[in-house]
């Protein structure tokens, strides 16, 4: 049986169907999860998709973290459930304190959508095992508040523990500290990524197929955990 990967829909989620398509292309079954239900339906991993949950009111992700589904998700993540937060999903993971730091307004103050070059720096997480450290991939970035910030101690810890999963190369699109595009938690099962790998799974509709590796990585991870 194929692994089942949940994709959460909050009010204002936009890339949920794209994330489900990427899960399907990677060979898993996408399962729709609803923000109002504190039930993960027994899925093997969860994707928090991009969008503007709750209209980004107050702060990006600040309201979504109180959704019933997040209560269940925070517990499950603590027990090792692989969780990938993309863009708004990354913001929600920071607001939920599953990941440290915060995502703030882009330095240039504009929303920016471009094909971004990323370097994968850590392949030890549940979501990046299919890459080699140093791999440079092309994935769309599109955000207004994607500038990653954290205090110096946190940044040093992230660097020291190899938890910076991906960095922007050939230009930082939003002013993120240390060119950070994505980070992982200590255990490596929770990853937040600002760019959108789900938009780079098919040459026809994206700049590359480089993003598919995020989704195949978690299948590899799940197979290894099961073995």
């Amino acid at each position, binding site marked *: 049986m194929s692994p089942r990967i949940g994709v959460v829909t909050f*009010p*204002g989620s936009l*890339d949920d*169907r794209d994330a489900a*398509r990427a899960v399907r292309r990677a060979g898993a079954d996408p399962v729709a999860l609803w923000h109002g239900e504190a039930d993960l339906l027994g899925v093997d991993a969860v994707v928090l998709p991009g969008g503007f949950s709750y209209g980004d009111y107050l702060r990006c992700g600040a309201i979504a973290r109180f959704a019933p589904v997040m209560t269940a998700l925070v517990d499950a993540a603590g027990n090792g459930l692989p969780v990938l937060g993309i863009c708004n999903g990354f913001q929600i993971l920071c607001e939920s304190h599953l990941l440290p730091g915060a995502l703030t307004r882009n330095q240039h103050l504009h*929303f920016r*959508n471009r094909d971004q070059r990323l370097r994968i720096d850590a392949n030890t997480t549940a979501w990046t095992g299919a890459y080699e450290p140093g791999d440079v991939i092309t994935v769309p970035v599109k955000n207004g508040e994607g500038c990653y910030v954290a205090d110096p101690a946190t940044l040093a810890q992230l660097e020291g523990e190899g938890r910076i999963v991906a960095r922007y190369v050939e230009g930082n699109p939003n002013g993120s500290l240390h060119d950070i595009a994505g980070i992982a938690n200590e255990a490596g099962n929770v990853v937040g990524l600002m760019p959108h790998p789900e*938009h780079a799974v098919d040459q*026809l509709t994206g700049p590359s197929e480089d993003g598919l590796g995020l989704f195949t990585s978690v299948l590899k991870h799940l197979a290894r955990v099961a073995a």
Partner: protein
Amino acid sequence: MTVDTVELAAKDPELVQPFAALGLEPDEYARIGAVLGRRPTQTELAMYSVMWSEHCSYKSSKVHLKQFRDKAPASDRLLVGMGENAGVVDVGAGLAVTFKVESHNHPSFVEPYQGAATGVGGIVRDILTMGARPIAVMDQLRFGDADAPDTARVLPGIVAGIGGYGNCLGLPNIGGELVFDPSYAGNPLVNALCVGVMPRERIQLSAARGPGNVVVLLGAKTGRDGIGGVSVLASATFDAGGGPAHRPSVQVGDPFTEKLLIECCIELYDAQLVAGIQDLGGAGLTCATTETASAGGSGMHVDLERVPLREASMEPHEILASESQERMLAIVTPADLPAALAVAQKWGVDATAIGEVTDTGRLVIDWRGETVVDVPPASLADEGPVYDRPVQRPADLDLLQATDPSTLPRPSTPDELRATLLRMVASPNLCDKTWVTEQYDRYVQGNTVLAQPEDAGVIRLDEASGLGIALSTDGNGRYTRLDPYAGAQLALAEAYRNVAATGATPIAVTNCLNFGSPEEPEVMWQFAEAVRGLADGCQALGTPVTGGNVSFYNSTGATPINPTPVVGVLGVIDDVARRTPMGFPTAGTILLLGETHEELGGSEWAWEEHGHLGGRPPAVDLRRERALAEVLIGGSRDGLLLAAHDLSDGGLAQVLVESCLRGKVGAQITLPADADPFRWLFSESAGRAVVAVADAPAAEFTGRCDAADLPWTSIGTLGGDSLSLEGSLDVPLDELRTAYEGTLPCLFD
């Protein structure tokens, strides 16, 4: 608070009413009295004033627009034609597509961010109302000179507003236009297009039928925003000082609420819980209630105090005229009401029963126990005044057409030609538009196959079969100023050509007609000629107009804008994997299709290099356009084309630069021995495209051109890292890229 009621209106027939301040003519006011058999209540007067405004009633344009119907070519694809919120066409595989372009010019001038944002929101609701899921947007923007101070005020806000709203709705922005011309300095044009898709059987009607059915208001609460926006904002020319004649309240958008409204409505449609639906746009509840009741041939009763308000002190006419955004009016059977309300609750959308459909043939509105409105709905919605306004050919047109660009100094040495090329690609109208387009999400929904700067946006509709659509819009105010009939046809021809260049077959047309004041006979002549040209052109190309929008009263000071019909063409493509991109491949032969004549009237070169506008625009040959389109579509379908790019503003030079930079490859161009390089590079003759073909299928492709009586010229080969023209030019791509990409960031960062 005392309010004027129907009872008082009968008792006090001589009350002096401020009809003129509301924009009504004396004879229009008299006509209201005749319709009602009494004076209108103050609330009714406000309703008539907004519904009979130019914006809602199309009173000056109707007599011309009917040509779109009278001359419409036969089409077995047309499911819903003009007159509905948006036209609907059959694209096969059980799917229907609806699309429309609309203006939001004046609000965007007053308040750039919110004006542009709510322009997107409004057109998206038009598409949603038809039963479709919105799947993409495009924006057509026109400003004064790029370096004019007011451009710096309005442009960044307008772009941010379009992005802020569209991005938050999850709609890819797949193309559009950005044009600078001083005629728009005090009146920028902000047009917005939306396209949506639905299963054929899900098409919704805007008619209120079935006495006893419940009238449900969905979405945002009603506030004082946008009151009078339609009649005051859209129908009053800005004064010479650049400020609005009346300080209005522009509507404020909340895209999050609209996103929920979209999901809620689509779930209602799929569960077949609505019997009729209408969006609330210009003239708000007034328009929605009268149009649905009129379309249904029914009556309607509304209890106005049930409308959820942001401000409790709002009076009946304010509630009825409010243009608060993100609202829809649904007609629901009593049996379906609980289920419909449950769907709304699931999505967190407010839903309130505010009245019911009746069989009285009257729209009756009560407020706090008194009747404030009792009117025949068709008198507001469909039977407004119609004017056949006087037309007069502009007095300066002969002189303008006689001022031919043939005498302008031209580059005469290779160095001058090189410098001209670099200045042209760096000019604001021809330069790279990434500064704007990267503020828009083009990837969301995962079906964007082509997006700007490609000739047309291409969206996949069906993942299994690859069925998709292509969309392009074009307009050229300078051409239309020189010859409105030809200018409208050139806009149509260009959009048609753009769609065909991607490999899609053009099937339908929408338009947004931006003009000056209809009360000026010279403007009205431009309008009449442009509509006639467009209607004739659509007939000749076999693409019916399915809907559109008219925006009058666009002027900078006392000078009307260049007449600007923006034309959108929708195409269908069986398999999006077959689409032809515009970027050159790394190797191959470049062919120029069509004929190049000396046609520089209204050209980008004449304007940019000499500030010259005169002569005649390029000649229109729609038979040639059809032949070109068929060759491009067939070449795409059969895999003969590696790239295709249509020629328009800036001519061949612009196309070569864009396709080389997009493909990151150089080109070595050799023109025919007798060719004048300047004319070949910068003339804007219509009916042309550049294609790249591999060596082997080249003969097959040129054979098809010959069979279609389409002239072609082999003009060079691909490769290397510079664009060279044998005997005169050799410009490295890096130098072209620097010139092309530097302009907008330099102006607006």
